[in-house]
């Protein structure tokens, strides 16, 4: 049975007086939680499940917490930490989920010729993102770690589901991929649970399922630290990820250094792109490519798009100019002040 979630706030007295309550808007079920070192908000409009939406969302958060336990770079018991400690000496056995993720990340690193590189853990540690007591890394130390393409030094054994490193001195950081992959898993989970219309905001990355009251979702696209959208994107099922350095940065001697590293320089990317939003049918692709395009810059992004056409983009350049890929241009409406 298809259920719509009405506001529980409707007072019993008003319910009896049906003449007016018929005008009250349907309210979706919403639930927010902290997980994956970020904040998630589920908004469920329609479900065919017999299970209540709170149960579905709680199950989803449990799944995300479990995945975060495997993928966190800061958790000493995670698979990522085990890879750092052991993978050069002996193959590390990982879950099917992590195996598939890291293998897909290697494919995406190769596809983007290293613009998306998930082996920058040591560089991120040097910069001290997420801590308030670091100092600016030494130029020579950064130069030593730049342009290494360490993803080429990861080997996989499909039979034993093990991962090995063929070189030392690097570690995996899935900060530009894990959230997208988690949204892929969330998409499967919610659909299997019977959800037919929902939107999930996962720390700014968006998953949309179905339509909203028969219409496309209008998703606000932001490009800086404010919540003023540069425009709205009309989408149906899909994933939207945004990369920019507006909120996550460290400051040393009054200079801001954002967290999106150019693997070729080991410094924060400075490609002329201020913010990049990517829409794709796959969460991992949208997440990884939003970072890759931010690193590549406009020209290489356009070339990549023409060659592969696996995702659509909205780019805000440093001077505020908006560029959209042709497959999405008709669905994007720029703000009047954008």
């Amino acid at each position, binding site marked *: 049975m298809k259920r719509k979630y009405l506001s*529980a*706030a409707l007072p019993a007295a008003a319910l009896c007086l049906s*003449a007016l309550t018929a005008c009250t808007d349907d309210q979706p079920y919403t*639930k927010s939680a902290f997980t994956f070192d*970020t904040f998630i908000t589920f908004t469920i409009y329609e479900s065919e499940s017999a299970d209540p939406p709170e149960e579905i969302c709680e199950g989803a958060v449990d799944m995300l917490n479990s995945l975060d336990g495997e993928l966190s770079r800061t958790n000493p018991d995670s698979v990522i930490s085990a890879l750092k400690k052991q993978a050069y000496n002996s193959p590390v056995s990982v879950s099917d989920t992590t195996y598939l993720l890291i293998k897909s990340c290697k494919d995406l690193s190769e596809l983007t010729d290293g613009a998306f590189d998930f082996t920058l853990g040591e560089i991120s540690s040097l910069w001290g993102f997420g*801590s308030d007591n670091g100092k600016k890394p030494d130029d020579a130390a950064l130069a030593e770690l730049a342009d290494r393409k360490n993803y080429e030094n990861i080997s996989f054994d499909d039979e034993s589901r093990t991962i090995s490193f063929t070189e030392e001195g690097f570690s995996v950081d899935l900060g530009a991929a894990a959230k997208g992959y988690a949204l892929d898993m969330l998409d499967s989970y919610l659909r299997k649970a019977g959800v037919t219309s929902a939107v999930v905001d996962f720390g700014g990355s968006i998953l949309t399922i179905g339509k909203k009251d028969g219409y496309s979702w209008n998703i606000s696209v932001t490009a800086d630290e404010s*919540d*003023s959208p540069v425009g709205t994107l009309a989408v149906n099922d899909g994933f939207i990820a945004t990369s920019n350095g507006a909120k996550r940065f460290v400051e040393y001697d009054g200079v801001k250094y954002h967290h999106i590293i150019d693997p070729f320089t080991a410094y924060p990317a400075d490609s002329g792109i201020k913010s990049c939003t990517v829409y794709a049918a796959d969460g991992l692709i949208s997440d990884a490519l939003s970072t890759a395009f931010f690193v590549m810059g406009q020209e290489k992004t356009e070339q990549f798009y023409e060659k592969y056409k696996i995702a659509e983009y909205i780019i805000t350049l440093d001077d505020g100019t908006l560029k959209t890929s042709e497959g999405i241009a008709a669905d994007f409406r720029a703000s009047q002040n954008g």
Partner: protein
Amino acid sequence: MDKRKVICLAAVIAIVFFSLLALLLTGNIKNGNTACIYSGGKLVKTIDLSTAENQTFTISGEDGGRNTIEIKDGTIGVINADCPDKICVHTAYISDGVQPIVCVPNRLVIRIEASRQENSHVD
């Protein structure tokens, strides 16, 4: 108009009046932008931004984390925090809420809600 019609009309007017009254009293009619501050999943403060005076105050979380919040000219933002990443401080002030202000380490959320929804939960 006969007496029965007058009674019917009066009854309809009374129903409409009391329905409106019920909706007003229960907050189901949308009013100004209200900033809702959640700490550790609990709603700890609500502020009507359309009437609030400029001010600063500090919210202390269950784990001792502290965020200093400023209300300024109908907007709300975090001006200081003891969290390591300072993402909440780097987020611009909000007033009509496409995105909430979130401090993950201190489990703080500031969200603008045009009308309070009872089936909205923050864990």
